[in-house]
């Protein structure tokens, strides 16, 4: 079902792959199937997915598997690297015209967020010392001009408008004159939302383009867009020759596969992303972040990389030994926490350990923000308590809570969590024993 977490699914398929050495065709094929589904679920266009998957398949087969990774993880790493490459490797910025004013034309479908983005862009440029002018070219939607005026007022940026009785081409032309006369060096044209198949309105954009010759034509696209993103981007690009893309509503939880589709069909850079309704929430685009978001494995990927660098192999061995012999103490717990804090979300770290299903993890979900608290609590314990938590009675709990600035419930919760962890580790040790009989394999705890 759709609501099954992707991590769960991925975990399943990654666990299927064992062994080392070079990536076999079978390894790659199995993981790529999951990758394909992940990308489709992220709304990447079907054709784009197909092409991408095939090209990566070829590249991955025969690839060396790195020491610290399982073959499955290795394939994911390759996929992610390729995705990042495809998303554009460097950040592209707004180009300014040698002769001011620099004219920026915003275009896109209805409801993509052009007006809000125009205001945000204005603020961004203003911060850079530019003097922008917003131009209301949407004469069709009720109150669109008023909306831009309100946005302009909030952003403290002047808005040029001629009401809704004038042709947008004329409005655009007049606004350039106005800008030249009044010393505005950037003109942002907020055009009406339109369907890419609406010839009349697409012609209107073309006319504005030929009349005022914008330096930047930015296509504003909703990050939630599905398969149709390809058609939309292609149409706008063919008609106008866009210079870049703004991806909006990325503060939602859509995976944003549209970004990849658009890149693939237009080869135009994504320049900004909209991260909220507030006018300062426009951010530069980070190809790597977007790639992992689309893949849906977020920080897991970061972990793959950091795991190689961060975890001290020797310490890991010691830790592992302690786990197995059940000598795991709060001191170890603290040390692990501190190491993990450098690495990212705790549950995802544990998820990387094959054999620990995400289901088991749900029982001991640790909130990121809680980590600080936990650290404080452990640090408020005496040495003896850390070594032997069973001696922590009521009055000790009270003391620990006071010392760490938390309350008794927090302390209790941690103690319980610790117990759970130990229990789980015991389970794993048992599995390990089973493994020795040849039943299981543990790629992580080699």
């Amino acid at each position, binding site marked *: 079902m759709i609501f099954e977490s992707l991590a769960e699914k991925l975990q399943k398929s990654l666990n299927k792959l064992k062994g080392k050495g070079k990536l076999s065709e079978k390894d790659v094929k199995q993981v790529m199937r999951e990758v394909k589904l992940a990308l489709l679920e992220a709304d990447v266009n079907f054709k784009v997915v197909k092409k991408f998957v095939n090209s990566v398949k070829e590249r991955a087969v025969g690839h060396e598997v790195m020491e610290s990774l399982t073959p499955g993880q290795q394939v994911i790493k390759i996929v992610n690297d390729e995705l990042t490459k495809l998303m554009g490797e460097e950040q592209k910025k707004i180009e300014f015209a040698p002769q001011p004013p620099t004219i920026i034309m915003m275009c896109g479908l209805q409801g993509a967020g052009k007006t809000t983005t125009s205001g945000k862009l204005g603020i961004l440029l203003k911060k850079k010392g530019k003097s922008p002018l917003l131009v209301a070219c949407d004469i069709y939607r009720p109150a669109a001009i008023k909306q831009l005026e309100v946005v302009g007022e909030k952003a403290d940026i002047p808005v040029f408008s001629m009401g809704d009785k004038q042709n947008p081409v004329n409005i655009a032309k007049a606004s350039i004159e106005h800008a030249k006369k009044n010393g505005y060096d950037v003109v942002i044209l907020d055009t009406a939302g339109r369907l890419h198949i609406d010839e009349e309105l697409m012609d209107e954009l073309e006319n504005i383009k030929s009349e005022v010759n914008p330096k930047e034509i930015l296509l504003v696209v909703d990050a939630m867009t599905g398969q149709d993103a390809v058609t939309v981007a292609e149409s706008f690009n063919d008609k106008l020759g866009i210079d870049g893309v703004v991806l909006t*509503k990325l503060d939602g939880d*859509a995976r944003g596969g549209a970004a990849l589709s658009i890149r693939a069909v237009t080869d135009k850079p994504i320049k900004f992303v909209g991260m909220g309704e507030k006018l300062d929430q426009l951010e530069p685009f980070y190809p790597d972040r977007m790639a992992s978001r689309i893949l849906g494995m977020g920080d897991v990927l970061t972990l793959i990389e950091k795991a190689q660098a961060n975890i001290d192999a020797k310490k890991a061995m010691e830790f592992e030994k302690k786990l197995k012999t059940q000598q795991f103490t709060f001191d170890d717990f603290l040390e692990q926490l501190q190491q993990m804090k450098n690495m990212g979300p705790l549950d995802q770290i544990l998820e990387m350990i094959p054999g620990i299903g995400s289901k088991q993890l749900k029982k001991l979900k640790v909130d990121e923000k809680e980590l600080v608290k936990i650290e404080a609590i452990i640090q408020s314990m005496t040495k003896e308590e850390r070594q032997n938590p069973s001696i922590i009675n009521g009055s000790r709990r009270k003391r620990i809570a006071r010392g760490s600035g938390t309350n008794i419930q927090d302390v209790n919760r941690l103690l319980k969590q610790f117990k759970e962890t130990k229990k789980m580790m015991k389970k794993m040790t048992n599995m390990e024993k089973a493994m020795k009989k040849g039943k299981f394999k543990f790629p992580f705890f080699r």
Partner: protein
Amino acid sequence: MFKKLFGKKNNSENNNQQTQQIEKENNTTESEENKKEGFFSRLKKGLSKTRKGITEKVDVILKSYKKIDEELFEELEEVLITADVGVNTTMRIIEDVKDKVKERKITEVEEIRELLKEELKEILTEVDENISLNIEPSPAIVLVVGVNGVGKTTTIGKLAYRLKNEGKKVLIAAGDTFRAAAIEQLTEWSNRAGVDIIAHQEGADPAAVIYDGIQAAKARKSDVLICDTAGRLHNKKNLMNELNKIFRIVEREYPEATKEVLLVVDATTGQNAVLQAKTFKEACDISGIVLTKLDGTAKGGVVLAVQSELKVPVKLVGVGEKIYDLQDFDPDNFVEAIFSE
């Protein structure tokens, strides 16, 4: 009256008469010629676009195959996924079609189309509840919710116009107090539709607007109160809590009203629509979906995913920017339209 209108799509003479009648009843700001041509050609245009997308491809595919094999199914899978039906729902559809092929010992490639049609209809009619707008008996309240930019305000304008033409006394409450000029936009629509509007200032508490709307609807004996709400991304906890508060006010202050909570979904939206529907259902118990912007090239296939996963029926469809560009969603017609020759 509009219901009648919708039922008689083929009888164009009759339709024109009725459309003209509506025009006489309503002197709105729309130009009359525009309206006469607009309504049905748009209705058809909107549908034919959906139809083209899937049917043409299906036909091409079916023609290029002589026998039913795995490759054929893979191509059909592709068609559905490209229509935003989503991986899971697509798999389910194809699996079921495969089963039926086995069961019925089908060997003809052409019969696959009938099976696909059957399968899509099955999903769309799984929800056996009434899929027409639930506004009887009066008084009724329609709460319109959704993420940003899907067309809530426009839908409300169209809906108000439509209900007014059905002879209802309609009142609108401008519950989007957040977005710049949202109130002005809705006011303009209320003028076009010729209905009253209850509005506060930008930045006011939306729950208070809805409260006032309810009191006004009671005092004026309105048949239907349509409430706008600000667009909100479903992953914003505080905004969803705000929506829940509005929902609770409706339940508390207007218990006697027939309730309809409509989630507006943009047809260009991909799989995120399923998550949207799920979260909004939790916050305000959505009872129907309005699928907007179906006049583009987007296929709106996500409807199938939403119905399949959440059993929330699509009730209305938006096919343009004009005030009359709102139609009933008819699953039978929808599927027929998708697969008609």
